[in-house]
């Protein structure tokens, strides 16, 4: 962890993450106004003393809506990634450990699933699930699963041929021991790093789905949905689309920076500054 903070990118990422996670955890309580409350006389205003980030087309305070929507956006990303990583890691580890025909079959299926562009896959699944925040999370998790399975598999494969694993096999250790005590502890690193970077993708896709009306539904204040709702007014008050948009970007950047710094910390060879 210390290595991550020492890296300037990692430090920036950690700070952004802290900001964003703080907003996600405490946002709804910190919001100065009720996010659904109309202030009819103050519609489409820019930032002011009264409304720090301005108001939207119904006069609702943007800052409050932003803070209120933080959990939906951020936890969507975390949840979808966690599910996708869990499922993918299990499949990938099984493929990597079993080898032989099981591995070949799993690889073929993964290749098939990965042949589709990711957003397309997610769109299909979420459409047929009917749209909505939970369905979108499931769809993103399913989309991530093959990619994470691939990464888990390759991580396991690279550890499997290390000499300390061979030593364990030569000793006659049981399968369970070899996988659980020798392979997994050393294979998890790259998986976790990739997972962290994936969270930013999940957040972006979640926001995109919200934007397209297939993810979070009104009256949620998910950030992508905020942009969609305010789209027709974006020229009259650019703040109402810029604010949630930039918030999404900052969140994604935070996870990206943190994930990259983590990757550097895990793999000293890449430390070139």
């Amino acid at each position, binding site marked *: 962890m210390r290595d991550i903070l020492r890296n300037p990118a990692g430090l920036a990422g950690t700070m952004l993450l802290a900001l964003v996670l703080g907003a996600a955890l405490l946002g709804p309580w910190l919001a100065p106004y009720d996010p659904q409350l109309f202030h009819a006389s103050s519609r489409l205003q820019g930032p002011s003393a009264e409304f720090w980030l301005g108001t939207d087309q119904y006069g609702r305070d943007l800052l409050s809506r932003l803070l209120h929507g933080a959990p939906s956006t951020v936890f969507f990303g975390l949840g979808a990634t966690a599910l996708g990583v869990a499922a993918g890691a299990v499949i990938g580890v099984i493929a990597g450990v079993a080898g032989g025909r099981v591995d070949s079959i799993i690889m073929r*299926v993964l290749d*098939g699933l990965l042949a*589709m562009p*990711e957003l*397309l896959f997610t769109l299909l699944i979420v459409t047929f699930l009917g749209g909505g925040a939970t369905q979108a999370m499931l769809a993103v998790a399913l989309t991530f699963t093959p990619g994470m399975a691939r990464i888990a598999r390759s991580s396991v494969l690279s550890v499997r041929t290390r000499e300390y694993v061979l030593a364990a096999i030569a000793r006659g250790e049981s399968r369970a021991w070899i996988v659980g005590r020798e392979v997994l502890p050393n294979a998890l690193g790259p998986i976790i790093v990739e997972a962290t970077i994936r969270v930013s993708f999940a957040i*972006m896709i979640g926001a995109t789905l919200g934007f397209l009306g297939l993810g979070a539904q009104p009256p949620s204040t998910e950030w992508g949905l905020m942009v969609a709702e305010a789209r027709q007014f974006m020229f009259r008050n650019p703040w109402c689309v810029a604010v949630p948009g930039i918030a*999404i970007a900052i969140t994604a950047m935070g996870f990206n920076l943190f994930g990259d710094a983590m990757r550097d910390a895990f793999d000293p060879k890449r430390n070139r*500054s």
Partner: protein
Amino acid sequence: MTLAYLLRRLGAIAIVMAIVTLAVFGITMVLPGNAALMILGEHASADSLIALERQLGLDRPIWEQYLDWVWGVLHGDFGMSLRLSLPVSQVVGTAFWNSAWLALIALAAVTMVAIPLGALAALKRGSVWDLGIGLFAYVGTAMPEFVTATLLLILLASPEWPILPAGGFVSPSENLGGFINHVILPASTLGLILMAHISRQVRSEMAEVLSSDYVRAARLKGLRGRRVVWRHALPNALAPAVAVISLDIGYLLGGIIVVEEIFAWPGLGRTLIYALQNRDLPVIQAITLLLAVVYALSNLLADLVIAWLDPRVRHA
């Protein structure tokens, strides 16, 4: 790169396409609601629903629908759009070309800008250039298309200051100038994000090549700096860069869907969204298959380019 290799790859693509179409059909088995429901609306009577379903062939078992469809595709017949009552090939045909133009323009711009940028950043490590390009890359990869599009629209297409049109499409055969005018914003939106990602990858590959033993050996032979970069470093960084670009094409194909929707560009993406909203199965199938095939073929093309660039792969 032998004929056997090509045949094997094409065969693998065919198998993968089969899995993809199966997957799409499988997804529809879980669906609540179907095309008949979308056409007649929520308050339709059960009888009229059943009648329409029979008319559209939706009452047959799923596997029969699937095999029927596959048979048709193998004969070049993609069926009829359930919603529009037009042949799918007609619906999809023009849309395909519109999307293709957009994608190719974006890709060309990206390649011409991102690769030199990335190489430049690696050459001038730690300089203002490197940091600037790095920052651009970080910010760019954190912005979803709709955010970039919205910001670009606010900046360049606002009613007070309409430098560029906010959306729509003009065919190049009608009016080339108009086409260019309308394609700039959507292509830039698509391109910006790709540029950020690719320049970052190129930078990292180039940096690795520049610190390799053979580049060091070349410098120790006293070769001039320019030759070392152009003849020793760049060619070895290009092959991995192409590999990355080929993966990004998947991202491009996804991004096109959102961009076309925002800019009202009548391509595959917009058509797909419409088809999804209406549960228009044959259209969904056709577009999905098309996009997957394009992705697979572009990966194959990228592999061929890599083999041309890197003799080690060629002889493998």
